[in-house]
């Protein structure tokens, strides 16, 4: 009976504490900058084109093969009168968010820091009625960065904190 009293005392003590509920749909927990939702492409605002050159590095490194990349000659390259230094640029890009397992490898292998993990709530709230709606095309992948809605965090693998 002593133990029963102890249990009841414990629950009563918890009863007096403040609830820890996070009222999710109305309250969104502030996400840490490293939060990994799904990969998206970053937008080079200076030249107004994606950073991505379509080099297929991420596509090859992806463990679940959720990416499809097509590259083209950059119509905005200096040689044809544009202002961009990129000779090749991304033409089409699909990421199947339904297949992606958010391992961050695509971000690590990218040589141009062109891809990052979405660390906003928009990356987490992706309910759709049809799983083919989760295959994101280039427009959907760049729109967040193009609109300036993301402060991306692109880690350098193996880099230690400054002491």
């Amino acid at each position, binding site marked *: 009976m002593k133990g029963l009293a102890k*249990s009841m005392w414990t629950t009563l003590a*918890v009863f007096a504490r403040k609830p820890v509920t996070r009222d999710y749909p109305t309250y969104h927990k502030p*996400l840490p900058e*490293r939060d*990994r939702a799904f990969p998206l492409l970053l937008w080079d605002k200076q030249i107004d084109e994606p950073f991505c050159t379509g080099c297929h590095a991420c596509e090859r490194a992806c*463990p679940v093969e959720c990416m499809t990349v097509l590259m083209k000659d950059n119509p905005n390259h200096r040689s044809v009168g544009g202002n961009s230094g990129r000779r090749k640029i991304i033409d089409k890009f699909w990421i199947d968010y339904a297949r992606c*397992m958010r*391992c961050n490898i695509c971000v690590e292998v990218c040589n141009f820091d062109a891809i990052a993990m979405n660390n906003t709530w928009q990356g987490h709230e992706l309910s759709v009625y049809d799983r083919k709606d989760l295959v994101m095309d280039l427009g959907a992948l760049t729109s967040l960065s193009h609109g300036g809605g993301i402060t991306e965090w692109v880690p350098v693998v193996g880099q*230690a*904190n400054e002491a």
Partner: protein
Amino acid sequence: MASEMLPDEEYEVQDLLLNVGPQHPSTHGVFRMVMTVDGELVKDVVPYIGYLHRGAEKLCETMDYRQGIGFMDRTEYLAGHNAELSYVMAVEKLAGLEVPERAQWIRMILCELNRLSSHFMFMGAFGIDVGVFGTPFIYAWREREAIIDLFEEISGDRMMYAYFRPGGLAWDVPTNFVQRVKEVLVSSKTGIKDFDGLLTDNEIFRARTQGIGYISAEDAIDYGMSGPSLRGSGVPMDVRKDEPYLYYDQIKFEVPVGKNGDVFDRYICRLEEMRQSVSIIEQCLEHLQPGPIMPERMPRMLRTPPGEVYVRTEAPRGEYGVYLVSKGGNRPYRLKVRSACLSNLQPLKQMSVGQYVADAIIVLGSIDIVLSEVDR
């Protein structure tokens, strides 16, 4: 006499077959056991596994070492760091990599935190199995949430971390890491105290768990059990003590051991282990120094010499071993995960036959299976 009234030719007396799972609230996932019950007594248990089989081992053979890390998380979703650790340690051993000191300490802290969160999960689910309405589960989630939030701040993900790399860590922890860990430890201590108060001394809880699901030390060893389920039977086997990996040899901690080998002892071992984990983390924090987290020279694509290696670590549920065969190149030739849960599940029949239906449920709860680890 009943037998005279019911002639055998017309009425065949059958035992009831009770199909528990795969969709049953207390099978901890998609586990199915077919119980033969005589009234309330269990006469036979036939477990069926494989509902969550995804072929993670085979998948890893088609991928290079870095790509495999993500799959290791998924073989043990409640203790991803521990599962990753076994894998990356196996790769390191094979490739002969020296891991910097800071990375090792951080690995230790994260693994022990993961042990805490996994044991909290056990406490919650076990409390539900024993029949407390929701309370332990919510306590468990409350504390687990704090730990998972910390993991999210460090690695970016809440469950599938993919944070350890062969050679060290993917990236360094945030600068407020030490302070955040201390905060989490404070809340975890509250949680441990709450569980202790809620369950340990509760007479009904004791009546339900003591003397139930007995397994002797010899049988437990024969079945290949490990982790708290084995230590509950009184075998002080802990990989952290017996074959210290990381820096466990520099840390003072005890291995809690049970006496009776029943459900209660397995519970109390886990509770005590949580306290030990807290103390381990506190000691690790003192050792943590700034420094590199990866070896100086890491190849862009990791290749290993031919060879085979078996590395085991103490995951929350027991010995999590990775057997890795390489024929050179950048991917394993064969990867085998020695899962603690699968071995711990073997004596289920011996432990639950002759008990009541309700006891069979808590026996299953007490060995704390994670079906993704059983089936892989």
